[in-house]
């Protein structure tokens, strides 16, 4: 029965990735190994982040969820993710949509393999039932959306034609703001929720909503740029 529960969690965790991969038609581009390549770059980036964290930030577990400057600086290390995604985009010769999708799925896929699978293997098979494993799986689904969005933003930023977009507000500044909002998403929502003492289910809902809203704004810019450069 607990193995069955583990199966439930795995299905919840991986099927959305598979659906995304399939309906983005990545298989037509032979993108599978490129996703794996993206995953390797993900692992490398995380290693670098850990080195930086271990070197410059003394461990103080106590205040992990409070809003403070040290936590803010700590999560600034996540800016390295942007560099990592940029490297993936550079190393993928594909064009347009498939390139962004490949980078996002590769990145997110490596993340769930490295951070979630062991957790489920050890935790969800135990005798003890806990909702947190289902919650982690749902959160991973949201992270998939989040990483694809980040990849698209990085791609936008890397385009020189971005400034040619007609807009009342500098599209360049808008993309930067969106990127910052997505990088600091975790620290924003976590400190907000510890402050207001929100239960885990609401946190997932807030994360989902936050990501969808950012995603819609980003999609607006993305659509306009891809129309501008004639890419479908």
């Amino acid at each position, binding site marked *: 029965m607990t193995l069955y529960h583990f199966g439930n969690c795995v299905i919840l965790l991986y099927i959305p990735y598979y659906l995304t991969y399939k309906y983005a038609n990545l298989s037509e581009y032979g993108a599978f190994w490129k996703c794996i390549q993206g995953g390797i770059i993900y692992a490398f980036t995380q290693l670098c982040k850990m080195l930086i964290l271990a070197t410059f930030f003394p461990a103080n577990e106590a205040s992990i969820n409070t809003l403070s400057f040290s936590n803010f600086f700590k999560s600034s290390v996540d800016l390295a993710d942007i560099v990592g995604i940029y490297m993936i985009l550079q190393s993928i010769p594909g064009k347009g949509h498939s390139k962004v999708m490949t980078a996002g799925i590769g990145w997110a896929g490596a993340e769930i393999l490295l951070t979630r699978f062991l957790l489920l293997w*050890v935790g969800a098979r135990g005798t003890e039932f806990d909702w947190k494993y*289902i919650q982690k799986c749902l959160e991973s689904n949201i992270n998939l*959306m989040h990483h694809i969005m980040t990849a698209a933003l990085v791609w936008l930023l890397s385009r020189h034609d971005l400034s040619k977009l007609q807009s009342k507000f500098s599209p360049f500044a808008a993309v930067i703001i969106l990127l910052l909002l997505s990088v600091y998403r975790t620290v924003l929502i976590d400190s907000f929720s510890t402050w207001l003492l929100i239960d885990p289910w609401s946190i997932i809902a807030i994360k989902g909503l936050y990501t969808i809203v950012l995603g819609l704004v980003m999609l607006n810019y993305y659509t306009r740029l891809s129309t501008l450069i004639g890419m479908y």
Partner: protein
Amino acid sequence: MLGESDEFSEILKTGFPMYLLIAIPLLLVMSPVCPANAAHEFNVYRAQQYSLQGVSYGSKGSIINLEARSLKTWSSRSRHCVFVLMDNFTIEEYKQISAGSGALVLIVPPPPYTQEQRIIMMEIEQTILSSDTVIPIYVMDWSPKVKKLMDNLGDSKIIDENASSAAKAFINSVSANGYQIVVSTSKPVLQQNVAISTIQGQLIGYGFQDKLPSILIVAHYDTFGLAPELSYGADSNGSGAAILLLLAKLLSKVYAEKNRPKYNVMFILSGGGKLNFLGSKNWIEQQMDKSNILQDVSFVLCLDSLGTSRNIYGHVSKPPKDDSKMGLFLNELNNNLGENGLKMIHKKINLGSDTLAWEHERYSIRRLPAFTLSNYKSHKNNSRRTILDKIERLDPKFMFRNAQIIAKTLVSHLYDYNTSETPKINIDFETLRSSLDLLVLTPRSTQIMTLKNNPLLNNLLLAMNKYLKDVNVSHLLADKVDPQFSFFTVTSATLQVYNVKPAVFDLILTLAIALYLAIVYLFIQLVPIVYDLYIGTIRPEPVVSVPKKSNRKDKHR
């Protein structure tokens, strides 16, 4: 499903899936399901398992891996671990549960108790201690975590027969929280080398030691109760042993004077007081064999449970003659006690009974004049063998008064009521307090006192050595072939509580996940539509675009 991607199909064509078929079961077998991360862990104490004179008592089991239920929801048809508050339990219910094959966890409610609560709890305790059962029985202390667990068990809807409809009953059974109780410990085995230790020491009177009459002061220090590690025995017989230590200190001062009394006084801290006074029995037999100390005994004074009231009962097997030493002492004690007086209770030794009533009967059998002083009127009082007998039960004021009067009477007896020679004695409350603390802060059941170098035993020896001469310990080991008493291991364990869901719940969860995945699928299909929508809002740019089916693409999610 994976065949859609070329790379996957290639992988599938190799032997890879075959390896997986082997590797996954291997992984499943090899990786332990770690039981360490239970939601709650409690310290529990196993009920007594012992045998006395060939009859075994208590609970024989120790291992539990069962679903938890409350008294209302358990059923005898399947095996359950029943959680019960001790004061909310009847003997009939206990008999039903102990006849089954589940397990029982008794929770000691928080003090203070009313008189009825105490009576109920002590009756349950005696029932368990005087019967035997195969199910594991554990005792657990009260704590807020335990209360929460009990509340959850109480409202458990797992088998709610009052549900108004089948649908509601079904929903209840899916949403219910279950608890799996695991106690993984070793199986109880016969405890080796259990010894009943008796400590003796004496004060020598003025004159030829061997010609002086002697007085014996006896108190047993061991305790007994439902769970060995919870038996603190504050009143019975922590109070008696503490008064004995106090008398030892006091008389050691008296005996240091020049005109010391013409009596030898022997102090005996006996073990096995709850095991038919085997410690005293063994001690008497040893003395009979090897010394003449029992030749001229004025009387034997046994102290048993003197800490809860000002009423002192004197228990004798044969009424003393008024002019005997014992008669004189009891009269004097009666005078000193004042208005309440000493109430004498005469009970003949019942040789047909398996157990003796009071410790003095061990001495009376040997024709030594002996009596017991106690706050209890009857030896059948359950308060003498209970885990509820903790230090809060003692009334230090009464205990101090009782100690003072006994000490005063004893000293004047030692000087043959010759008031001019009798030294002034004063005892202070602190002395009593410290000897009491030495005893009653640790459980003193026989089976946990028997470890070599037991700290409590060592401390008692030290205390006796400080005041008395010829202090030594004698150990009574159970006979290997036909043991008079035997105990079993596993006196405490860790109880783990796992939160579990019924099996139906996982099925429902699978359905919910399938529904969720369908929504994710629709959402992914929605992204191209939003994409098209955005394109529709943009003025056609110079680049002419052929509207292509935009079903492939992008921001998918």
